[in-house]
């Protein structure tokens, strides 16, 4: 049944009920009037009776009509509200899951059907993009292997010309960088396709943090950046040891790279209820709030006029975000230009 038919039928129902209430009110009124017909003057009686009728039959009918109308609209619109709530839950990763349909063939049901086929098509194109990235990153590996091998061989054979040797070595460095980007892309493409399996086990996060701080201290040394471990509570999370180390190292590397010479990095790990909270703060130049939501995007570089000298593959924070999400945690980046920049990671602690 279409919404138009349904609404018409319901409205007819509401009107009938109102009419019944009104006519019964009128009937009672007229009956009473006939009993007292002899007492008052006709004009005064007519005025009184009219106002009584309005009060006793008309008003309830209006109120009933209002309530009925409200109920009608609510009933008519409730599938729309349900649909809105269902649509709000849609994101990139559950596109293929269809919205529930009422199956009664009305306009909303048809709309849901069309919307479902739209998301299925969208999901298919997302899938194709992911597959493309996955294949592209694999296909790039063979030529990269050959290129790297050829250059290595050329360098090993020892060209007589020092300038040529320098150029070859510089090419090798760039291939190294390209290989890192391809590696990062492969990892993210595999993660998108759900092909990375995490080896979950109870992991002492505080031990990994101490280890990471030791590495960060060494990494930060050339820029005279001081690393301090403010707090390190004993915390065990359920996670993949290698991925968690990769996460910590990516965050530390970022804090070093985007810091200023002589700056500071503060690290703290605390347990709050069922959550482990890791904070890494650095004294870098910061990032405008408008750009902050984009730091986890692939190849996002911040304010390019400041950071073009920073080396790296541009995928570190994307990989960090993936790792945190795969551990059902949350990562946030908060920064003010000229003030401290803090990355906060929350992970659920392991339950025994």
């Amino acid at each position, binding site marked *: 049944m279409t919404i138009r038919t349904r609404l018409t039928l319901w409205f007819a129902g509401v009107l009938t009920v109102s009419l019944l209430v009104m006519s019964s009110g009128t009937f009672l009124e007229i009956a009473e009037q006939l009993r007292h017909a002899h007492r008052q003057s006709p004009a005064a009686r007519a005025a009184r009776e009219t106002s009584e009728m309005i009060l006793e039959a008309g008003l309830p009918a209006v109120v009933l009509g209002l309530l009925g109308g409200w109920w009608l609209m609510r009933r008519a619109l409730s599938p729309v509200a349900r649909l809105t709530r269902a649509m709000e839950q849609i994101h990139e990763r559950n596109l293929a899951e269809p919205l529930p349909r009422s199956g009664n063939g009305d306009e909303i049901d048809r709309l849901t059907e069309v919307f479902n086929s739209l998301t299925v098509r969208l999901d298919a194109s997302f899938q194709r993009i992911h597959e493309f990235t996955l294949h592209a990153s694999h296909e790039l590996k*063979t030529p990269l292997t050959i290129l790297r091998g050829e250059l290595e061989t050329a360098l090993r054979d020892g060209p007589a010309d020092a300038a040529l040797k320098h150029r070859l070595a510089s090419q090798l460095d760039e291939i190294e960088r390209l290989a890192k980007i391809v590696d990062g892309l492969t*990892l993210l493409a595999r993660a998108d396709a759900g092909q990375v399996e995490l080896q979950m086990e109870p992991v002492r996060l505080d031990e990994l943090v101490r280890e990471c701080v030791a590495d960060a201290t*060494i990494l930060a040394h050339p820029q005279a950046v001081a690393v301090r471990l403010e707090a390190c509570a004993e915390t065990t999370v359920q996670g993949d040891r290698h991925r968690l180390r990769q996460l910590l190292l990516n965050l530390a590397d970022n804090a070093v790279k985007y810091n200023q010479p002589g700056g500071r990095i503060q690290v703290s790990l605390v347990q709050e209820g069922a959550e482990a909270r890791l904070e890494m703060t650095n004294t870098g130049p910061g990032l405008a709030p408008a750009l902050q939501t984009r730091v986890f995007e692939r190849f996002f570089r911040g304010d390019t006029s400041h950071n073009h000298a920073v080396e790296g593959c541009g995928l570190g924070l994307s990989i960090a975000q993936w790792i945190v999400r795969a551990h059902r945690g949350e990562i946030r980046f908060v920064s003010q230009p000229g003030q401290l920049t803090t990355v906060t990671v929350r992970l659920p602690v392991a339950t025994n």
Partner: protein
Amino acid sequence: MRVLVVEDEIKTASLVRHALEAEGFLVSVCPRGDDALTAAVAGTFDGIVLDIMLPGRDGLSLLRELRAQGHATPVLLLSARGKVDERIAGLNAGAADYLPKPFVLAELVARVRALGRRAEAPATELRVADLTLDTIFHRAQRGGKVFDLTAREFRLLEYLMRCSGQICGRMSIIEQVWDYDFDPGTNLVDVYVRRLREKIDDGFEPKLLQTVRGAGYVLKAAP
């Protein structure tokens, strides 16, 4: 040392062959998985470099078949794929080592050489020129000077000394010293090596710890 290289990509195969031959290995190349199995079973190879994606028969199934037939020849797996965790799948199938593409040739050579060394018991006292390292007492010294090394620096020095004379690629160092199974994408190794070099080479002659551009590091006595 005789090595069988199973790789269908002609250019990669030829690069690997030349790199290994330059280091004195005897190399046979086979581009097909099924032919390679016959060759591996019939021949007397000391090591096999095996690509995973092959025509005829894929590398993992070849490796399983080889082990099922009772051949224990050590195998280094190469792979550009990585759909499932091939590293784990490969090691479970009986591979001795795994190297993802794109690899550094010097790294490949070092790992093939390591295939032949697997059976030896590790020494507890290492020596390169006048630099010595004792893994039991956790002590490293040169010319009478005992170094103050962090645990990580000690492991790095131990690894470089165990492979002395051979190039150690960044990825091998990351795996052996940090126990990471990923490339951290940072210059962590370079920074550590620089610090280690300051400790063991500053004020001493000859310089032992050298950088091989694009390949890695080598610790050796003769220049």
